[in-house]
């Protein structure tokens, strides 16, 4: 671990201890102006004294990233930003959405699209954001694949990544039904039926998705719960684990860098 700048030692709360006099400042009385200036630092210190979070922050932010790290390495965090954008726009859509298959769902989406201020814009961001996120996940996966980044010691991060991929696709599949227009309805019926052809758990899985053997009233609320609670929760938790491993193991150096270093070592040996 590289050397890190030291934080100042945590101050004991003001009233308990008078600050040491500063040069040229009389007996050390501190005016309200100075106190206000330091308030920000004091709050940070106060929290840090109780949580020791600043160590983790420094560990995360000031870790070294190998030389030669290029733009391909931004695809992972780009995926994360697409996910965050989906989360924020999704919250706004959820404020209006009603998972009611007998017309309420469709009507609420129509209301958002046509009446609500910026409603169509936010819905468009959510809709197209899903495509962007899927593309970015695949690009990011391609980068880690072609750079051999899944090899020792990052195998586990690859496995978590595949789960993230499946969850992302699940998000898109469950979200597609929610507007409850014709496209949504029939594509989902076919999709759930496809699930049902699977071996062993296939029929159970599609019964679970439908909420019974029929595509009915519970189906929509199930998809809604899966789409906005279950899977996003899992995604957020697993992205956290994914990033923890990235920070802990460090990002790979571009695979081409190795050769250069070998040559240098050779020179050193001679």
């Amino acid at each position, binding site marked *: 671990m*590289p050397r890190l700048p030291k934080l100042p030692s945590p101050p004991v709360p003001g009233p308990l201890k008078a600050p040491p006099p500063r040069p040229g400042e009389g007996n050390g009385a501190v005016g309200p102006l100075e106190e206000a200036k330091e308030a920000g630092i004091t709050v940070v210190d106060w929290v840090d004294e109780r949580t020791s979070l600043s160590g983790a922050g420094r560990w995360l932010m000031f870790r*070294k*990233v*190998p*030389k030669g*790290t290029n*733009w391909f390495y931004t695809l992972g*965090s*780009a995926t994360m*930003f697409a996910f965050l*954008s989906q989360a924020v726009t999704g919250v706004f859509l959820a404020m209006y959405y009603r998972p009611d*298959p007998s017309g309420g769902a*469709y009507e609420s*989406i129509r209301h958002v699209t046509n009446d609500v201020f910026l409603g*169509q*814009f936010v819905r*468009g*961001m959510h*809709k*197209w*954001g899903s*495509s*962007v996120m899927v593309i*970015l996940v695949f690009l990011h996966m391609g980068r880690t*694949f072609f*750079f*051999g980044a*899944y*090899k*020792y*010691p990052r195998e586990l991060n*690859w496995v978590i990544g*595949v789960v993230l*991929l*499946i969850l992302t*696709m699940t998000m*898109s*599949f469950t979200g*597609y039904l929610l507007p*409850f*227009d*014709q*496209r*949504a*309805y*029939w*594509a989902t*019926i*076919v999709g759930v039926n*496809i*699930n049902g*052809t*699977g*071996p062993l758990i*296939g029929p159970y899985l599609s019964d679970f998705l439908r909420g019974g053997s029929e*595509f009915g009233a519970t189906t929509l609320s199930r998809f809604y719960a899966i789409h906005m609670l279950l899977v996003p929760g899992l995604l957020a938790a697993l992205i956290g684990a994914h990033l923890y491993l990235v920070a802990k193991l460090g990002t790979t*150096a571009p*695979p081409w*860098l190795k050769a250069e*270093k070998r040559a240098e070592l050779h020179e050193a040996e001679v």
Partner: protein
Amino acid sequence: MNKREKEAYLRDYAILKAKGKPFFPYAVAKDGAMACVVMAVIITMSLVLGAELGSKANPTTTTYVPRPEWYFFFLFEVLRVIKPPSLVPLATIGVPTLAMILLFLLPFYDRGPERRPERRPIATVTGIVVIAAMAFLTYEGANAGSPTAIEMPTPAHVVKAGGATLGEYEAGKLVVAQSGCLACHKIGENGNSGPGPDLTHIASRLPRQGIARTLVNPTAPMPSFKNLPPQKFKSVVEFLSQLK
């Protein structure tokens, strides 16, 4: 990778990392720039392409196109290409499941120490082939139309029978055309040749009751059409059982 190779890797990596730059602000700046690009793309797409809403879901109609979101097209296409019904579960579940298992286990069967793509020819070529195949299937899936009209000559015996038979035939043809059957079935020169079987000569294979039973209680992935209004349902069965 054996123990020695692992240690060699960790040693090399430690050197490379020590020569690197701190994450903040260098990597953060790049990630931030990329984040701005991502947001700009999403916002532009939303402004330009908008968010359409089709007509309300209606289990009893007509004019729907069972089409997934575009990034599932490749799956849909696999489904279309593999025709025999006995192989459909293989296409729908078998291929994707196998692909997922292979993807999960990748780090455990590809354990060589080499990381440069040009020195891992098998992995690199496989990756490129898979990407090309998926791009091709997506493209094909996107272009597989779902026509909503059936154009074919009315069979002679129906024309001769005329009257009610001809009426039912024409009505049924319309309902079938509008009910999305052509997304999965071929009738004459119309529709896609998969995932469902060709229906051009369905009546010579399946009696009237058999057709009705299929529509009420089909095998996946075909959706059930038992919610069609009785009159429309009757016309559909009538139409199909004339296709000798």
